Each structure stands twice: as structure tokens, then as C-alpha cells.
């Protein structure tokens, strides 16, 4: 099966600009996650969707970050305005069933964001 698709692979912007990332999960996966991975660290959850609804956005910096999954499939993550500390890899993951605790998440290869 096709994996999680993300684009773009790389993005370079100046601080205070805006940027958007796109994710297409594995077909049939109801749950979608966005993670931020800073160099040298493990991924940190930003937001989780169940179909088109937000399950957990407690770690999303809502003053500058937003995400949506309008039709319950693809998702976009936006940063506006970007700060230097937002430089990281943004990973999207998906898992199979709603409310399924013990299902592994499958990750895309991420978007590497550099803020100048």
C-alpha cells in the first residue's frame, strides 16, 4: 500500500512569513497526526484528527499554528507568522481505526522547514 505522502520535502522562508504543509494519509486511515521534530530530538505531537474532527491540539501553539482536515482525508498545517524556533521537520502520521489505542502510527518523510 502507498505510504503517507507529504509535500513539500523542503521549505526555506524568512521569519514572519507564512508557510503551509500538506499531508495525504494512508488510504482508509481515520486518524491523522502532525508532529514537530527538532534536530536531535524525538517527534513531538502537535495535533491529532479523528476523521475531520480535532481530538487533541493541546500542544499546538495556536497563536501561530493552525491545521485542518476538512474532508477527513488530506490535511494541511500552517504557520503564520513563522519564528526562528519553528525550524524543524514537520511529520505527518496516520493510523487505522478511530479510537484504536494499540495501532502503530505510520509516518511520512516529513517537510524540513528552515527559517532565516
Amino acid at each position: 500500500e502507498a505510504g503517507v505522502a507529504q509535500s513539500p520535502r523542503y521549505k526555506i522562508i524568512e521569519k514572519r512569513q507564512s508557510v503551509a504543509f500538506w499531508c495525504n494519509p494512508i488510504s482508509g486511515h481515520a486518524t491523522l497526526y502532525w508532529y514537530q521534530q527538532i534536530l536531535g530530538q524525538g517527534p513531538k505531537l502537535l495535533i491529532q484528527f479523528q476523521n475531520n474532527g480535532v481530538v487533541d491540539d493541546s500542544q499546538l501553539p495556536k497563536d501561530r499554528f493552525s491545521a485542518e482536515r476538512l474532508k477527513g482525508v488530506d490535511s494541511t498545517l500552517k504557520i503564520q507568522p513563522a519564528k526562528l524556533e519553528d525550524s524543524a521537520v514537520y511529520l505527518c502520521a496516520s493510523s487505522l481505526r478511530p479510537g484504536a489505542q494499540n495501532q502503530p502510527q505510520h509516518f511520512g518523510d516529513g517537510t524540513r522547514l528552515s527559517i532565516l
Partner: protein
Amino acid sequence: GESVGLHLPTLSVQEGDNSIINCAYSNSASDYFIWYKQESGKGPQFIIDIRSNMDKRQGQRVTVLLNKTVKHLSLQIAATQPGDSAVYFCAENMLGGGFQGAQKLVFGQGTRLTINP
């Protein structure tokens, strides 16, 4: 536990030897654990998982051991190959907020495995 700092622990092994990567997790209520492998420029790749009602699970060339008493998880890789070079992360499932059954993975710091020829 939570990811801290910029310096990954490193494990170097000889090709063909067995590798053991250790992880301490933070929450005694965590009920599900996953090991991921991350190669440079790629996303984390699922290796093996284990539920808290088990203490050992085996896959192809990999074994995960869970010791809930001391909150410790280990990944054993048999006959390590050059393709095993990567950063390995353990992740624990903390029951997530707002939705019954939601999964919330918290990743550890990661260990860089290098293979000596």
C-alpha cells in the same frame, strides 16, 4: 521519557553482533509501546510494538522486552547489518486528552546505532 537535549546517545556495534538499545519510559500507566527506526532524511519507520500485558515480543531479527517494574523497554537486533544504521526511538502511549481511546505517543530521546564493518 520525554526528548531532551541535542546529543543523542550512541551505540556502536560490529557487523554481525547483536545490538541492544535501551529506553526508560516515564508513565507507569502507559499501555502500549512502539519502537521506530529513523534513517537520515526519512520519517520514523515502525519496527515492532508491545502491549503492557506482555513482557516480550519477537519479530524478524528483532525482540522487544518490557519491564514494567522499572519502566524499561529494550530492543534487541540480532546479527546487526549495515542497513540497521539509524536512530532508534521508543514511544509510549499515554492516554490522550479529550477523546476516549485516543492514542498519544510520547517519544524518547533516541539512540544512534552505528555499525562497524
